[in-house]
Structure formats: structure tokens, C-alpha cells
């Protein structure tokens, strides 16, 4: 089970990113626990400068703009 956090104040890019992550994880058969981090104070703890950000198991893997699909796929490739 991977813990995935989507950091963003709720703009459209953040929602698109969330749907993309959900969709790719499901297609890859990876179980994820998805969390939305919407409070700006909490977002800033991850020290990103642009939203949406994506955090997987505590590591920032993306910030700013909707990630490319193949980038999202790479997050769920390694089995761990």
C-alpha cells in the first residue's frame, strides 16, 4: 500500500492530477491510500513552490502543473 498525497488548494489542475493518479494506480493494479492536503500551512511543510504537488510515501515526486502520464506511471512501476 502506497500513501499518496496530492498537495493543492483545490484548483482544477489539482483535481485533474488526483484523477490521473487514481486512474494510473488502478490500471497498474497498485493499491494506494490517497490523501488530499488542501490547507496551505500543511502544503508548505513539503517545501514546494508550485502546486499541485505529489508526495509518495513522504517523498515529493512532483510539483507544479499536471504531471505527464508516463511520469505518473513511473511512480507505480517499482514494486515495493
Amino acid at each position, binding site marked *: 500500500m502506497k500513501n499518496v498525497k496530492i498537495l*493543492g*488548494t483545490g*484548483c482544477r*489542475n*489539482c483535481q485533474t492530477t488526483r484523477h490521473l493518479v487514481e486512474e494510473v494506480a488502478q490500471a497498474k493494479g497498485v493499491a494506494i491510500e490517497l490523501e488530499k492536503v488542501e490547507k*496551505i*500551512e500543511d*502544503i*508548505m511543510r*513539503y*517545501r*514546494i*513552490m*508550485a*502546486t499541485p*504537488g505529489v508526495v509518495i510515501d513522504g517523498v*515529493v*515526486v*512532483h*510539483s*507544479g*502543473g*499536471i504531471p*505527464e502520464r508516463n511520469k505518473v506511471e513511473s511512480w507505480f512501476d517499482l514494486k515495493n
Partner: protein
Amino acid sequence: MLRGLPIVLIFWVLAYTHLTELADISIALLHLERASALGEAIYFFCYEVPKVLLLLIGIVFVMGIIQTFFAPERTRALLAGRRLGIGNLMAASLGIVTPFCSCSAVPLFIGFVSAGVPLGVTFSFLISAPMVNEIALALLFGLFGWKVAALYLVMGLLIAIVAGSIIGALRMEQHLEDWVRAIHLGDAAAPDNTNFNWSQRIAAGIKHVREIVGRVWLYVVIGVGLGAIIHGYVPEDFMVTFMGREVWWAVPAAVILGVPMYSNAAGIIPIVEALIGKGAALGTTLAFMMSVIALSAPELLILRKVLKWPLIATFVGVVASGILLVGYVFNWLL
């Protein structure tokens, strides 16, 4: 991807140099004459829509490539510790080329301030980034020509530089929210996009076109459509009485009207262009546009999370005064 590019480029140039023919053919196919109101409106639509969309695609593509050279983290490193003046000039210029979306305004603001970018310099960036954007520039260029687009660019930069300098000189650091002042980020999370090769930069340009043009094309079509109706049906000089250059209150009214409207340059500029054809003054309409884009109520609400009211009020006051001045100067000059 790289191999397809020359073909797209040739097609782009061919289409852009044959806009009049395209519009003529469309009119002929519909059995209309340009002399009639309907014919004129449809001709306007068939000429302007392809022109504006082509320019938008071209400029957004180039901007998408340029932005790959300026990650926010890099811009911040360039600005950290800069003095007022040169710092404001750099911040306003970097605001044009650094990728920015208004929903990221707060993380970016905190990222800048906590890394030692002075408050006034940060504001220069925050004013210029949304106001001088590629959509506004592409549409102004398409509908008004390069002179007006260049004037908009220069005036937008000037407002950002001067307003940021004033806010910096007022030393308003104590009007940041307390939790913001307590944050010391040090380095932000490492950017994962610093090393692009050229095919990735071009891919980024295409992605930028897909995102931006995909989002705004419908507004452009609707905006030009409304513009076409105004163009064909509204009598000449209709706008002179309340948006002409002789009307002193038109500029402040335009600025106030612009604040609650959310930035959608794509839909507004074509309408504005049509209104100017009917006697509205350019300065008044530019002031309206700048106000819509630079002072949007939703963005102010987002900024309220990090700024206390006195700083928000100063920000709005300084920027609005700058826009007013630009409006009057344009009306007077042109």
C-alpha cells in the same frame, strides 16, 4: 516529434499568410456580401478566429519552451538577496518567463520570502507574472498589432517594478501572517525538471499549447463571435459617449469593474477590440483589461491567507493607481 515540427511550421506560416483568402472563401461559400451587416459580422469572425488561434498557438508554444529554462526554484535563486531597484526590475522580467498559475501564488510567495527574496521584489514578480502573460500578449498582438502588445508589455512591467518598489520601501514585513514569518524553508524541494534536452523542451512547448489553448480556445471563439456581432450591428461611435477619451470617469470605472471579474483575457480582449472600433478609448479598455487580470478577487482571497489586510489594501491601492495612470496616459497619447 522533432520531425513533425517543420511540417507544422510550414502549415502555420501558410495559414497565417492566407487569412484574407480563407475569409473570402468562407464568405463566398455562404453566398454573403461583406456589404451587409450579417456578411461583415461573419467575415470578421472567419478572419479573426483563425488569426488569433494561430498566433495563440505560436506564442504559447514558444513560451512553453522558454519556461523550461526558468523553473520557479531557479528564478528564486536569481532573486534571493537582491536589493530594491535592480531586484524589482529582474523580478518583473522573470515574471514573464517563469511558469506561474494563480493557484500557486501562495506557495510561490512563501517560497520567495522565506528564501530571502525581499518583500517588494516578491511583489514585483507577483504583479508581473499574471498581468504580462502570453495569452494577453498573443491576443493583443493578433487583434491590435504589435505596437499595442509591446505597449502593454512595457506598461505591465513598469507597474510591476514601481508598485513592488513602493511596497518594498514601505517596509510592510510585519503585515505578513505570523505563521508565514515563522517559516524558514531553506531550500525548497529539489526541482526534478532542471535538465531538459531539446526534444523535451519542444515536448514541453507542445504540452503548454495543449493545456493553454485547450483551455481558452472556446473563450476566444465566443469572444470573437460577440465581437463580430458588435462589429456588424452596433452603430459607429456608439461607445464614444461612455467609453470615449473625453469621459474622465471612464478609466476609474473600468478599473473598479475589472476587480471582481476573473482573469479571462481570452474572452475579453476580442470584445474590447470590437468596442474600440465603435469609439471606446484604448487607454480605458487597456486599464479594464489590466484590472481584470492583475487584480482578481479570487487571487486576493488566496493571498489573504498569507497577507494581513493592510498589506492587501496597499497592494490593491498601488496597483490600481498604476493601472489608472496607464489608462489616462494611453488616452492622452493615442
